[in-house]
């Protein structure tokens, strides 16, 4: 199991697919540019953001590959807002100067949904380099995002980031990398 099953892929009309993709692309751009105050405005007050721990398991193991108990992040709106506030401080050393971040998002599919709530899966590679070096990190993941359609805008009500790493190869998982 590389990520939770996507057998429930649901077909949506081209307009909806287009709107969802444009939303995710714009959101990724805000993250890449550390426009985090504006990014916060896309989140629902009751949002839950999770990045579960992944474990290398033998095929046939009864235990899940993605932990149901432990996560790198499991945040509500208040904690996310505090993190954004923390990053804004000049002595948040890990992001001063800012990392150079770039999301590449693809394989966007609706996997569940009702009239006004859709759950969307996307694959992503997130590039990050930092400081005066040629080094970089590459984080690979599949995101599941639940969006509430408020007519003219979408609001993110839930997100889980399923990392493709059993051992993280990055010195920090700052919010814009998710």
């Amino acid at each position, binding site marked *: 199991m590389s990520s939770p099953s996507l057998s429930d892929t649901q077909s949506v009309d081209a307009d909806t697919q287009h709107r969802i993709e444009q939303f995710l692309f714009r959101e990724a751009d805000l993250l890449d540019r550390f426009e985090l105050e504006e990014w916060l405005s896309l989140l629902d007050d009751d949002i839950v953001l999770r990045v579960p*721990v992944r474990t290398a398991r*033998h095929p046939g*193991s009864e235990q899940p590959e993605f932990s149901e*108990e432990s996560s790198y*992040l499991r945040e509500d709106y208040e904690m996310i807002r505090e993190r954004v506030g923390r990053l804004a401080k000049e002595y948040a050393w*890990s992001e001063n100067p800012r990392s150079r971040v770039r999301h590449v998002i693809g394989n966007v599919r609706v996997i569940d949904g009702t009239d006004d709530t859709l759950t969307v899966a996307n694959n992503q590679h997130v590039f990050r380099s930092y400081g005066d070096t040629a080094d970089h990190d590459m984080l690979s993941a599949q995101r599941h995002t639940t969006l509430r359609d408020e007519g003219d805008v979408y609001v993110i009500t839930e997100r889980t980031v399923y990392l493709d790493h059993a*051992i993280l190869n990055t010195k*920090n998982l700052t919010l814009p990398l998710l």
Partner: protein
Amino acid sequence: MSKPKKTNEQTDISEIIERTGKAVEEGRYPLEILNNADLYRPELRRIFGRTWNYLGHVSEFTEPGDYARRYIGEDPFILTRDESGELHAFLDSCMHRGAQFCTAENGNTSHFRCPYHGWTYKNDGTLQGMPHMGEAYQDLDEEEIRLEEAHLDTYQGLIFGRIADEGPSLEAYLGDFTWYLDVLFATTGEGMTVVGEPHRWESDHDWKTSADNFSGDSYHVLTTHQAGLETETLARGPWEELTDFPGASYLACTDRHSVGYYLSTDADTFMGYPDEITEYLNPELTDEQRDLFGRSVFHFGTVFPNMSIIHGIQSGGWGGPWACIRKWNPRGPGKTETTSWWLIPSELAEDEDFLEESHRGWESLSPGGAFESDDLTIWEGISDSSGAITHELRGTEGNMQQGLGAMTDEVETVDDPLHGPAEVTTKGLYFDERNSRTLLRSWYELMREGDAA
């Protein structure tokens, strides 16, 4: 992210080892020991090959067949509970051609089968058999085929392993530090339990840097974690009672291990645990251990060489209380793979509200957290620059002189049984670097003795 590491051209490492031993007594140390390819293999052999190394917690291995891949130095061991309930740690190396046979991080199995030629071992490390055994191995001494096994012992649920056949018992190795491990891991009658899966990450820092940081360095918190501490809206819990952080802090050092802690004047603080914690207290704790736990806000420490501990409620209101065990697995000169386990008192395992707050505290000190992300950036820089040729050519020494001689009159030795059998100082977390000197002195004492037999 990895860079080529410096290879020191001096082949005689005894010079730098002796220089370190001498410098430490004056509160200095050669910076180059934090990224030095010549010292790395000797560290694995002389330190990790001979000391007791933390491998896991008994709560992770409750059923026969439970296993996990764990490391002593860089050596891959498989920690198992066998069918009769006994714990073992085997090297992941088949006795036929040396192939690895454990591909998962953890799981449950009665047997391990090598994928190369099919040799199969029971989870007690003895040979079960191999393909064509009757034809190919008619004169084999089956008793002789046994996986290489580390010596194991446990203390308060903590499982330690040692490669060397000779050496002190675990209890002798831990010495007076067992008193503090009781306060940290035997607070309640049922003891601690590991929850979920550990955080794991690789970074370009030396294992000694993080072991030193956790051994009792609150001095760095003021600067490194300033952004995390200036939280505006989160509830701060017992930290609000502590108006004078240095004044509330203590440092306890034994000859190898050390722990720092913050105490409240409120005897019912109990690290911010839910009130019912007092119903679960371990009756085997002494009155002093119970009182210390009662006044405790936050503890952190290091068991030499590479196990560190946190137990308490996070500062800045970032969650908790929780307990965390860290393992700094060496992965090359100036390179470490960190494993970070989350533990809670077993009696609170069903309390959902507590679990949420506790997880929040644990994750605050992870690569995703508000605190450790800043440490990691700094620690990688230490490793990078410690490999500088300038340091090697000039013999540059870093400074750890706090608390030495007339350096500060702030630090005072505490003479109160509340603080246990170690040497304890007030304000030691801020103004005394005895913990750092203890760690490097331990490093020196093991490195100078030459290779293990």
